[in-house]
């Protein structure tokens, strides 16, 4: 019927979502529904994507460009999700992009008035990639509701740069761009605090990750893949196989392989 996987599967991923060409950096924009992700997207790119106040309206990944400090950035707006554990189409799309799209920076937009819930996604993203910037959005609303957030403490706990913003008012966006640029160019190197599971999981994940390491050739985070395999995520396996298969078919990779073998 064509409805099941095609809309989100890897083949469409390649066509629709990998930004064409490699001019500049790719920035993924993730976040829970209603974190004001689309507002941040518009504010950064100047693109007038309509932003409604209801969950799930971003079905198609909007893409926009902006330049900052002489670098050009392609911003990819991912569907709003609570988690990256791929139990829905949106989650799978978001996860596949962060994992296989290999963005140079992933910005996670979180709602400052509802931090605890939104941190769950931040933590999950840090398991995939360390190049994460937290955009602490809706600060204006937090102020209105007298919620005070200790930003340095938050950044310290997460091991990530945290930029408070009020995207609707344009607050904090210049700094957000600075930080995105710094992470993209490598001048800022976030070291997310690792998440430690119980001993049984850690032991199993460690063993599995060691086995996976040579297979993934450093293209994917072995610990994260190991964890997903342990929790029985079948959708990821297909994705990884396709991802690695494609890499091998790539003429550039073939050449490299030849050199290595010679």
């Amino acid at each position, binding site marked *: *019927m*064509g*409805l099941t996987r*095609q*809309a989100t599967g890897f083949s469409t991923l390649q066509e629709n979502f990998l930004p064409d060409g490699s001019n500049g950096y790719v920035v993924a924009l993730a976040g829970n*529904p*209603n974190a004001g992700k689309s507002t941040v997207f518009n504010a950064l790119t100047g693109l*007038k994507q*309509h*932003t*409604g*106040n*209801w*969950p799930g*309206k971003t*079905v*198609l990944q909007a893409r926009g460009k902006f330049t900052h400090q002489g670098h050009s950035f392609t911003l990819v707006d991912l569907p709003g999700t609570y*988690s990256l*554990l791929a139990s*829905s*189409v*949106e989650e799978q799309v978001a996860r596949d992009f962060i994992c296989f799209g290999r963005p140079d920076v992933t910005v996670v937009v979180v709602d400052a008035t*509802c*931090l*605890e819930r939104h*941190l*769950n996604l*931040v*933590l*999950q993203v840090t398991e995939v990639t360390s190049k994460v910037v937290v955009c602490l959005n809706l600060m204006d*609303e937090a102020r209105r*509701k*007298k*919620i*005070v*957030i*200790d*930003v340095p*403490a*938050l950044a310290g*706990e*997460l091991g990530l740069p945290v930029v408070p913003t009020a995207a609707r008012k344009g607050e904090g966006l210049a700094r957000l761009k600075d930080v995105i640029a710094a992470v993209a160019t490598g001048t800022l190197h976030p070291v997310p605090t690792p*998440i430690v*599971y*119980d001993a049984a999981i850690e032991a*199993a994940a460690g063993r*599995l990750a060691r*086995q*996976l390491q040579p*297979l993934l050739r450093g293209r994917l985070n072995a610990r994260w893949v*190991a964890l997903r*395999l*342990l*929790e*029985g995520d079948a959708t990821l396996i297909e994705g*990884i*196989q396709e991802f*690695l*298969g494609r890499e*091998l078919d790539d003429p550039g990779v073939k050449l490299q392989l030849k050199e290595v073998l010679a």
Partner: protein
Amino acid sequence: MPGRKTNQVFDAARHLAGGMTASYRDRMVTVLYARAEAIAFRAVEKNAKARWDLDQRLDAILTSRVWGYPIMLALLAFVFWLTLEGADYPSTLLANLFFAFQDMLSGLFYRLGAPEWLHGIVVLGMYRTLAWVVAVMLPPMAIFFPMFTLLEDLGYLPRIAFNLDNFFKKAGAHGKQALTMCMGFGCNAAGVVGCRIIDSPRERLLAILTNNFSPCNGRFPTLITLAGIFMGGFLTTVSGTVLAALTVTGIVGLGIILMFFTSWLLSRTILKGVPSFFVLELPPYRPPQVLQVIARSILDRTIYVLARAALVAAPAGALTWVLANVHLDDLSIIAHLTGWLQPLGKTVGLDGYILLAFVLGLPANEIVLPILLMSYLSTGMLTEVDSLAALGEILVGNGWTWVTALNVMLFSLLHWPCGTTLLTIYKETKSLKWPLLAAVIPTAMGLAACFLVKLLAGLLGAKLGG
């Protein structure tokens, strides 16, 4: 090759995890949430509990057992009333302006000695249709879209979904269909694409097939204009305007009811199944940024929709003019075509011109009324359509009564989706079967509904035109 080797590792992983995967996963999620809780505990100095008070109070009204549904209907009616009331005057103004300019254009063509057919295609065909589309569509859209967007920004849409979800569940449909339905009020093609938010293929098909029951903004002008003329008595009185608004609300309400019915029917016949997991977040109400909303909805939606309509209207206008003015055996092509459609049209309380206008309006619903008007005019009736009253005269002159008007409104709600939507359905489902079904279902219902209305009106002794 990596394929086999990876498979081995994956098998190893499965073996390692064994039957424990569910428990592993539970423990991972628990740890993640505990960590999030701990971090928030350290970083947030005041808890966000208080912010729910206002939201709670608003929800207590907007989703109340007593007031929830009346408020929904009243809001809908209010939006239509405001659209009708506010759009009438600027529409007339624009029409006057455009038709004055048409006279100047005609004068120019004659002075330059342009052939009659060129003047016909360019001025009477393309320009006039275009002018009509802009004059009739721009003002209502410039009011309707910002209103709708304000409600959207406020956070009211998820409350609609919350209020209606039980009906979706009983119809075997997904709760998110309420949201795609609302998107359909903007544009059915967008609504169909929006159905991607529904995971289950069965429920997604239900939502796709029934999206057309939301009259899109290409059809609202038709509904609003006809209601204004025939139910609203040209909107000269307050009660007339209210009646017109209630009529449009009733048509929209009927669309929603039929959407539930069709979903229910489909999920008990060709799309059997039970509703899948549904969760709906009710976001906090946010004060909409009024000016920005108005600017954005006019720029984004109004101009976009208008541009699309205009793009289709100009060539369609030219085509219609040609059809109306090229004669075969002493009769224009339009006359031939309407002649064929006349028996069917008359049977269901419409006429051949109306059906032809809907057929020619396939590319975009916006042009149905202008095409209809042009085909009527080509038979040698009035010339200028600068007000609702003049428009009403043309229609009445062609045998329309309020029954015809009601039937055209019904058929506007219940007929095949526009070309773009059909193409989108094909793209989303990769099968010809579904767009076909999406066209057949509402059309059959529309013909039946019109026939029923005609029959009932006949019984009531209403004077039928023709």
